[in-house]
């Protein structure tokens, strides 16, 4: 029998299996080819491209206003932050000044997105490790955030709320109250999260010491976000390269030194609290004024190259635009956090048991459409 033109059992007696592309624990169409010695993982090879939609190439034929919507479909759990990155990059090229109100709204939405993304991740991590209940509890709080998004942006996931120069429309009159209610609800549920999963003996034994990656390796693989911060690498773009007024806000960059699944888990749990803290600072202080700067009908970036990085829920997203002065980009490149984080999977999982692979994958928090784009 051969599989992809190779033998199932290699000459060294290693057993080759395919996990995915249709597997519930790979969170999307990720295909992993795994070489096993008994139960121990010897090698992992991710096969990509199952959900490649050519967003970068497609953007070359769209105007600077229109290409932004497509980025919602990359990392769909951080859709707003992706849109924000593109809008910021275009604004950098146009050199427009974004009104303070728009900046505040953007940050609020970005932190709500991060919160909802981490909540979904928390639920899925529980599910992957065999606990079904957290999934439903996480979705309960996430639903309130989705309602905020739906009310103000008009969509739950693919918001397309950021436009070059600000946001698409002003916040809904009900926005403040709804956010405050949601925050109250979420804050009261944090200890539920801790109770049901963090201290659980099964969970601890499946994550502590599993999937270790050192800080040096995390850097050399280009890991960002909670994946790298779990190994003690300081890489929060919001702190190091502040955008949209993050420099004026108080928040901590969460670092854990463990480098294992449990450390990555703790980073995200603490980040949720930081996001709540950021929203609390802003929600009563949204400046008055315009929600969008005046921009021309047809946007044209000057000749040159523009780069903007933001911190999505999964790490650093970079948007690189090359412009030749026309109304649509000459070339767009996205540096997506998941692609780099996925590359570290082999280092984390080699030598562990196959059952731990699921734990490792879920604490990297992969979103496959962002890997393929």
């Amino acid at each position: 029998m051969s599989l992809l033109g190779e033998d199932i059992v290699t000459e060294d007696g290693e057993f080759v299996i395919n996990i995915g592309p249709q597997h519930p624990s790979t969170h999307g169409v990720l295909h992993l080819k795994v070489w096993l010695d008994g139960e121990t993982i010897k090698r992992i090879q991710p096969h990509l491209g199952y959900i490649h939609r050519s967003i970068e190439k497609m953007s070359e034929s769209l105007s600077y206003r229109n290409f932004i919507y497509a980025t919602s479909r990359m990392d769909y759990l951080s859709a707003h932050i992706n849109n924000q990155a593109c809008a910021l990059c275009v604004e950098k090229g146009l050199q427009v000044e974004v009104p303070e109100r728009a900046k505040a709204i953007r940050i609020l939405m970005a932190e709500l997105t991060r919160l909802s993304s981490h909540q979904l991740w928390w639920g899925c991590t529980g599910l992957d490790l065999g606990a079904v209940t957290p999934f439903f509890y996480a979705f309960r709080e996430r639903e309130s955030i989705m309602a905020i998004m739906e009310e103000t942006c008009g969509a739950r996931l693919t918001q397309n709320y950021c436009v070059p120069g600000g946001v698409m429309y002003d916040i809904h009159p009900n926005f403040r109250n709804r956010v405050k209610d949601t925050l109250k609800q979420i804050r009261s549920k944090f200890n539920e999260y801790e109770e049901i999963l963090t201290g659980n003996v099964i969970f601890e034994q499946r994550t502590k010491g599993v999937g270790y990656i050192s800080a040096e390796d995390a850097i050399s693989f280009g890991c960002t976000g909670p994946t790298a911060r779990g190994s003690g690498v300081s890489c929060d773009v919001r702190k190091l390269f502040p955008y949209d007024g993050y420099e004026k806000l108080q928040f901590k960059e969460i670092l854990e030194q463990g480098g294992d699944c449990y450390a990555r888990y703790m980073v995200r749990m603490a980040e949720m609290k930081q996001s709540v803290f950021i929203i609390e600072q802003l929600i009563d202080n949204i400046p008055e004024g315009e929600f969008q700067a005046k921009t021309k009908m047809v946007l044209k970036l000057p000749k040159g190259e523009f780069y903007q990085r933001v911190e999505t829920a999964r790490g650093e997203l970079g948007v690189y635009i090359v412009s030749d002065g026309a109304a649509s980009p000459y070339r767009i490149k996205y540096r997506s956090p998941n692609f780099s984080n996925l590359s570290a999977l082999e280092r984390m999982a080699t030598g562990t048991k196959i059952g731990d692979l699921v734990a490792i994958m879920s604490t990297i928090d992969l979103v496959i459409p962002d890997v393929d784009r």
Partner: protein
Amino acid sequence: MFLKEYFGSIYRSARSLLKGMKLTGYYFTHPKEIQTEEYPDNRATLTMFDRFKGEVTMPHNENNEHRCTGCQACEIACPNGTIKIITKQELQPDGKKKKAIDTFVYHLELCTMCNMCVLACPSDAIVMGQSFEHSVYDKRQLKKVLNQPGSKIMEGVE
């Protein structure tokens, strides 16, 4: 010493499990805390948010008039080629010919609900509708004509 640690770990493990069970037990016995909506049983009372982007619609008034001039700005603004505007030349009362809309073709299957067309329209002829149950058995049903048959442009819209 070893025994103490051994039993200690059993105690801690059992406690952590019971802690989680207590929480699930609480929600099991308090069904009021459940927040799920029973779709589709609640269809009659379900209202979407007014900004919800469900599909592009063209509102008509009671005289079957719309505000669309056929300027094609929405067609140009759409990133997906969802909208096709077919125009015609209409004879004005003063004898002059004027561009007017013949058919507004909207391919729902291509639409990503990005709202760019609504923003681009200079005469506010199209808005986002709140319907979301778009499933059909035949793909051809997703191609819609938004201007109603026999409709014409509202008085005073340029």
